[in-house]
């Protein structure tokens, strides 16, 4: 028995749109099966994972809060992935952005520095993330070093730096030796959009990033440049688009957005520096980017969907005693289903047997 793949000649837009939905449902069925294997009721799990968060106003706000960094990072990654460049170190760029921004927050702590602090923090975080993202990009363009491995290695390095700062120079001297900094001043805290709401301005940044990206990718030469670089690199070179500057640009953009996500989370959500500031957002955003088919609107939806799995996972941990790792496993399954669904859209697949087969 063997596989046969035939490229489809006509790919209908309907199939393209339906594929991620099918992938999502399949992933749910597989996850339900795993939960059943673990001796729990998949139906109860579905209730806790999906229905309860969606029917509770507090959870809905939490959903937006969790989707914000995912959307910011994933929209940045979509630039890289479209150009077929593999930045998988967004988690590190996120961390570095948080460190750069927090530096200002901690250095202005207790002073009467005013309104300029927050915007500058945001800019610093973008700068920090972009610079950190440019390291693998530079190593690739200048020396031809594989960007997948270097960007990933830099995640571990960034986490060590953060750990050092939180336990060392940035530790709150009055904090009973807990590895955490002082709480940010109000001037360094990202405000909520509404009084008494948990949703902060980061959500607006994410929406703006999505809109701007939609325009860039759809209407500008730069957007076409990314698409061409990803689909036909030699043709991109022939068009006069230098692969080097494309690489540097997309890594700077995705690093910058990941860095922004980092400070948004620390300043709008955590309120201080600690050794762990991420919910694995940098890696999860890869799933989000693929689930959203690298399309800005798709990424917006995907970030909400994946944020739901985070909240559902926390609920399930409390209510059903299901381990949090289930969430990550589910995200892995989801990403696999999305990739398989993509392939089913592009190819007609059948199992065939033939006499004297191979």
């Amino acid at each position, binding site marked *: 028995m063997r596989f046969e793949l035939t490229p489809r*000649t006509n790919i209908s837009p309907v199939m393209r749109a339906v594929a991620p939905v099918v992938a999502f449902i399949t992933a749910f069925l597989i996850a339900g099966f795993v939960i059943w294997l673990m001796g729990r009721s998949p139906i109860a799990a579905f209730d806790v994972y999906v229905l309860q968060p969606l029917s509770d106003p507090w959870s809905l706000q939490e959903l937006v809060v969790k989707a914000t960094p995912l959307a910011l990072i994933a929209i940045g990654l979509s630039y890289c992935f479209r150009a077929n460049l593999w930045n998988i170190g967004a988690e590190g760029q996120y961390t570095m952005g948080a460190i750069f921004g927090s530096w200002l927050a901690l250095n202005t702590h207790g002073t009467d520095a005013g309104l300029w602090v927050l915007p500058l923090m945001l800019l610093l975080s973008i700068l920090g993330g972009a610079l950190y993202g440019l390291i693998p990009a530079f190593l690739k363009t200048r020396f031809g070093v594989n960007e997948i491995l270097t960007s990933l290695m830099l995640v571990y390095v960034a986490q060590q730096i953060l750990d050092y700062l939180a336990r060392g120079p940035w530790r709150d001297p009055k904090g009973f030796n807990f590895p955490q900094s002082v709480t940010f001043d109000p001037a360094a805290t990202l405000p909520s959009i509404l009084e008494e709401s948990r949703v902060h301005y980061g959500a607006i940044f994410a929406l703006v990033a999505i809109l701007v990206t939609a325009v860039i990718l759809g*209407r*500008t*030469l*730069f*957007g*076409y440049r990314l*698409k*061409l670089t990803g*689909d*036909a690199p*030699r*043709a991109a*070179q*022939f*068009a*006069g688009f*230098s692969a080097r500057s494309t690489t540097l640009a997309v890594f700077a953009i995705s690093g910058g957005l990941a860095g922004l996500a980092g400070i948004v989370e620390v300043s709008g959500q955590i309120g201080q520096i600690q050794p762990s500031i991420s919910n694995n957002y940098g890696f999860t955003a890869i799933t989000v980017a693929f689930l959203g088919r690298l399309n800005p609107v798709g990424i917006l939806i995907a970030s909400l969907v994946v944020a739901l799995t985070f909240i559902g996972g926390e609920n399930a941990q409390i209510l059903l005693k299901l381990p949090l790792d289930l969430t990550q496993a589910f995200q892995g399954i989801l990403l696999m289903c999305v990739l398989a669904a993509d392939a089913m859209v592009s190819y007609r697949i059948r199992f065939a047997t*033939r*006499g*004297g*087969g*191979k």
Partner: protein
Amino acid sequence: MKADVPPSGPPLVELKGISKRYGDLLANDGIDLSIEPGEIHALLGENGAGKSTLVKILYGVIEPSAGEIRWEGRPVTIGSPVEARALGLGMVFQHFSLFDELSVAENIAVALSNEWSLSTVRSKLGEISRTYGLALDADRAVWTLSAGERQRIEIVRCLLQNPRLLILDEPTSVLTPQEAEHLFTTLDRLSAEGCSILYISHKLEEVRRLCRRATILRAGRVVATIDPRASSAREIAALMVGNEVGEVRTDAPHQVKGEILRVSKLSMPPDGLHGQALRDIDLVVRSGEVVGIAGVAGNGQSELFAALSGERLADRADAIVIAGKPSGTLGIDARRRLSAAFVPEERLGHAAAPSHRLSENTLISHAAIEVSRSGFILMNAARRVARSIVQSFDVRTPEGDPQARKLSGGNLQKFVIGREIIRKPNLIIVDQPTWGVDAGAARLIRQALVDLSREGSAVLVVSQDLDELFEVADRMAVIHQGILSPLKPIGEWTKEAVGLEMLGVAQAQGGTRAV
């Protein structure tokens, strides 16, 4: 027209009603073909007629949708190349089925059955090489070899298995005239020893030289089986193409004026592991003329194209002067702004992005010039440009603005050439303008290039197809191992002289001479 081969026993192989369908396309449509023992049988047809599909079916690489294959009179199913080889079929592929990083011996052993160890391959290789005059060094890595030597590996690989039927797919397309003659001698000898040969080609001359029976395919069907020696070239061509293809007219009045492109002492290191370095290239192309560059593939043509187009930059600006401006260090966009245009060899993936629509594909060479403004794409302008290319160059498209990959080779080539010509460039550089293109499209493209030069542009054509160059070029040079021979008027070249240059013999004798 039926050829006069006396039937004695069943034919070695007989194809009956072979069809192959790809989606809407019927690549083979009820093909009948028979080959007698010891016969050299030609399979003639132009690009896209279905020859390659048919032989891949015979060799078990692809599966027919319908039809029957009989081997010595009994029906067989050939499920894979392994089974084909077990029956006694050998195949020499057009785009060789070789592995660049492996040695010659490894390349041969990997295609043979398990009882062949590397050491037996080595010893047999020497034997076969001596018998048939096919010299090969067992331990050389394939990427170091010339196209002719690579083809020898393919042939030896087949001969080691004592084939009953040897299939050769366009074997001379990468050979010099001298290498081709050597191949014909080997084939004659194999045929005399009783081995049948199926010889696939679109070149009439060599078919008439080798074969007494030819099956002609057109649009996936057999249109005739003839004796090529008994029919005129014109008749055969008409059968292949369906209607007569006129010749390219080069006699329009024209004046050769000032130089548009001057290349002086252009040298360039090889690009990547297996590239060819360019050495001291000198070249001038003037307004109003077509200059041709001949050579066997892999002798620096693609490197020369990359250097001239600006995809790779020279280290001196004055190595390449376009329209009076030193351009060696300018990128491809800047050169386009000097009214230069370029068409690379690979249509899909280099000249055009396969999954992009034609309108998007116009952006590739027009972006810097007319279909974008302050970074934004003018999609309507791009569509307009695409439409006018499609109309002016008779590009047949399945729909209004299709993806590039949905066009046939000939139509896509007309599009990518048209995309450049429509800009009325002062200089156009084309690498392999009609490679793998049907006769009608080839003629249209050649005529368009000649017409452009007659209107005052400078045209540089790099091609492996000597007939093409003799047809369109006013002056010609030959490239061999990154060195360009002096440019001479086309009338001063003979095919033999070109062949010697292609082999590097003339250079070895110290300079070029007309032979």
